């Protein structure tokens, strides 16, 4: 797949279409490995709590079962089972319905966790129907009832014990993924084999503890294909067994169970109080006390994104372009810890010459006003600007190109020590949306009296930040964590009140190395809200500075960004990322 998931227009499959496609799954899930016969010829009665069902299973053989739910009539289903040490995992759909069950049974403790899964019928937090193709899930914790034996008191339960971990997995189907758990309700994943680009995505997830080294994980690719992935994994032997269910970008049903081998790639710091083991998720106080079946908080930015026309965005910008917070009139939530403005450029004249042939002359009148013109142009343009000294004699400044259509801004690094410059040239509108920022990054050299301009050396794209996780405290009211997931994407999460990380989301981005430990990071929240965050990150001071550029229904805004960072941890993911052939060659060694 070479269309990024966030740009792919997934079909709105109807309930009827889904029903027809599920008919082929009546025989149970496919599997590249041998099916387990662990439950063949046996019966299991699984009793669950919290309003969950009693499931009575009889397994005549390795592919067929008979299920009775509560006091209902028995129904024949195709199934597939796999084992992971003393864990039996099996999955099946219920013919004639759009639902099924994924079941994890611990043969030693007798405890069982049941994921009821279904298509068609999900609703979002406001009660609006969700895409029928999005797999819903409800988790029930229970046990296997044995005649004459008292029910165990313990249950599997939610946990934060795997929060912060990152994995590489390779399934028996050959599918490779990177899966990062920076949160207790969400996860990031990178499809190494399914997708042409190394982009990270985020999905709502559950994390269930079976025992100290065995856990259950699931994710549903909400806002994308709606595919559900669920597996049990064992941290002692780094193996997984699980299931993938849903409709891919070709609307083909994928329903298979898999085995996989993995590797732990790192561990981020867990910031909850020590007494917090994550068995309860502390959402914020406005979250409803009880959620409907299948309900969970899900960030759905593409459902809420307003699609504006080019004309609308232009008119908004013409009437109301706000610069740098509008002298206090616009809250700068992202700039509570901004660096002081620098007047380093005041009085200087210079030219920035970029490798794409563009050159601009600059006259900096003072610390906040400048004149610029395209080289060869007679007319100078007056603009308000703001500048930060991000590192020693490394200046990062930004300004609008007033009067342009679409509205355009530049965020420019001036490296006076090396006479280098890098420009992020941004404009309202991308190939997809008029109210989404598009940009290009160009490298070049500075020309100024007293500077020797290099002809070959340039700032360069880098993956040095990839794998790192930093918290960013923008202001008293706003702290997030960035995981630099791949060389072309990053994810961000918001902390819950407990210090646990909550929902996260992801977007494509670019990283440029300016100096050792100093990077330009540019991210546009694509197909989300279209906002660009363009900052210089100094990993020595753990402080960033820069600009946010966005356009919406009320303003076009070139705002300020400034936050304090903390090192949260690192994932050793770089070895799995990059051009395919290089990776294949590494794997072969």
């Amino acid at each position, binding site marked *: 797949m070479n269309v990024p998931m966030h740009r792919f227009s997934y079909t709105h499959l109807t309930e009827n279409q889904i029903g027809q496609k599920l008919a082929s799954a009546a025989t149970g899930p496919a599997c590249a490995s041998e099916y387990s016969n662990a439950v063949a010829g046996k019966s299991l009665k699984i009793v669950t709590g919290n309003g969950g069902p009693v499931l009575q299973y009889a397994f005549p053989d390795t592919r067929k079962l008979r299920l009775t739910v509560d006091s209902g009539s028995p129904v024949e289903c195709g199934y597939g089972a796999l084992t992971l040490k003393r864990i039996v995992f099996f999955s099946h759909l219920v013919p004639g319905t759009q639902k099924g069950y994924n079941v994890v049974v611990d043969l030693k403790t007798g405890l069982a966790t049941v994921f009821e899964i279904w298509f068609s019928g999900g609703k979002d*937090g406001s009660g609006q129907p969700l895409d029928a193709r999005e797999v819903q899930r409800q988790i029930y914790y229970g046990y296997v009832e044995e005649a004459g034996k008292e029910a165990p008191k313990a249950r599997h339960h939610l946990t934060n014990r795997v929060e912060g971990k990152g994995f590489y997995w390779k399934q028996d189907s050959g599918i490779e993924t990177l899966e990062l758990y920076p949160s207790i*309700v969400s996860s990031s994943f990178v499809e190494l084999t399914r997708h042409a680009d190394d982009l990270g995505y985020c999905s709502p997830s559950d994390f269930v503890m079976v025992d100290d080294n065995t856990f259950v994980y699931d994710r549903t690719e909400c806002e994308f294909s709606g595919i559900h992935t669920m597996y049990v994994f064992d941290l002692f032997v780094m193996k997984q067994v699980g299931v993938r269910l849903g409709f891919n970008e070709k609307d083909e049903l994928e329903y298979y169970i898999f085995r996989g081998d993995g590797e732990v790639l790192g561990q981020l710091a867990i910031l909850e109080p020590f007494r917090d083991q994550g068995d309860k998720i502390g*959402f*914020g*106080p*406005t*979250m409803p006390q009880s959620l409907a079946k299948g309900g969970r*908080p*899900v*960030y*759905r*930015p593409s459902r*809420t994104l307003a699609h504006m026309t080019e004309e609308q965005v232009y008119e908004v910008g013409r009437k109301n372009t706000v610069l740098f917070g509008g002298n206090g009139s616009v*809250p700068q*939530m*992202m700039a509570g810890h901004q660096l002081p403005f620098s007047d380093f450029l005041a009085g200087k004249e210079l030219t920035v010459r970029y490798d794409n042939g563009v050159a601009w002359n600059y006259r900096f009148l003072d610390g906040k006003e400048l004149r610029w013109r395209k080289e060869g142009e007679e007319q100078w343009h007056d603009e308000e600007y703001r500048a930060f000294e991000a590192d020693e004699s490394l200046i990062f400044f930004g300004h609008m190109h007033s009067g342009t259509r679409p509205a355009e801004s530049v965020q420019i690094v001036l490296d006076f020590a090396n006479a280098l410059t890098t420009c992020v040239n941004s404009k309202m509108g991308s190939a997809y949306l008029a109210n989404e920022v598009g940009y290009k990054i160009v490298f070049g050299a500075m020309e100024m009296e007293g500077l020797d301009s290099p002809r070959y050396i340039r700032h360069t794209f880098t993956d040095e930040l990839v794998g790192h996780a930093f918290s960013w405290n923008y202001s008293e*009211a*706003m702290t*997030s964590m960035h995981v630099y997931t791949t060389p072309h994407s990053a994810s*961000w999460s*918001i902390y*819950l*009140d407990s210090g646990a990380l*909550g*929902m996260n*989301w992801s977007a494509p981005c670019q990283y440029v190395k300016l100096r050792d430990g100093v990077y330009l990071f540019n991210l546009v*929240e694509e197909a*989300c*809200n279209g*906002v660009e965050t363009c900052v210089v990150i100094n990993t020595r001071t753990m402080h960033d500075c820069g600009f946010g550029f966005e356009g*919406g229904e009320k303003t076009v805004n070139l705002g300020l960004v400034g936050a304090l960072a903390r090192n949260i941890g690192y994932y050793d993911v770089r070895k799995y990322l990059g051009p395919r052939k290089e990776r294949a060659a590494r794997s072969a060694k």
Partner: protein
Amino acid sequence: MNGNVDNPSIDAQQANSGRRSFLRKAGSALSVLFAASVPGAASEAPRMREDAEGLTLRVGTLEDARAIQQLHRLYGEYLGKGMHEEIIKLFAEDGRVSLHGGLFYGRDKGIRRLYAGRFGHALSEVQDGPVHLLQVDWIQPEDAVDVGPDGLTATARFHCLMRVAARDTTKYPMMDLARAQGQGLLQWWEHGLYEISYVKAGGIWKIEALSYRSQALADDMSGWSSVSPAYLPPFTKKFPEDPAGPDKLIFDAGASPSS
């Protein structure tokens, strides 16, 4: 809901007011009867009449003070439950409010803008009515009420201690993410001082002028250890530039007591 008819608390004030009138009349009648029936009492009658009238006045004043305290408790209760329309009814028609550097004039103009407009949006997503978990818990530790000699005007100072929760409605992507996981709620403790003047019209006490100053704030998460002198940013725009803004700006109000 009509504040003068259906509101039992307001009815109680009217009842108090009526009782005060009764006490005044009864006091006068009793003093006359007392003077006429006791031998040798004629010479003491004027003093006794004065005592009785004084007592009547004092009782009336106490009843008025109690009515005003009840009125302020209602103000706090309505504020806590987000019943902003009911708050508005507590004001005199030409009432005024001073808050955070802004002056709001007129019950049905500026005061309505402040309570139904600004508070209605800031403290809850609905315009009016109690909202679960979006509330102002009101503790009223101390008060001083001074009823005028005519029984028609009064002034009062009320300290209050509030637990305030307000939605952060900032339009920003990360706030959307926070709101989706049940956050985006600002919570703090606030100690403040009300200075209020009242006027009685038609036997009912109404707020003539209300001034509120925050004295100290403490973030709910970090608790009392983080208490600091209050500084809430003053209004910077008047109505109509700010649709829920004040009629007039004053720049000293709302400032930290130490400033």
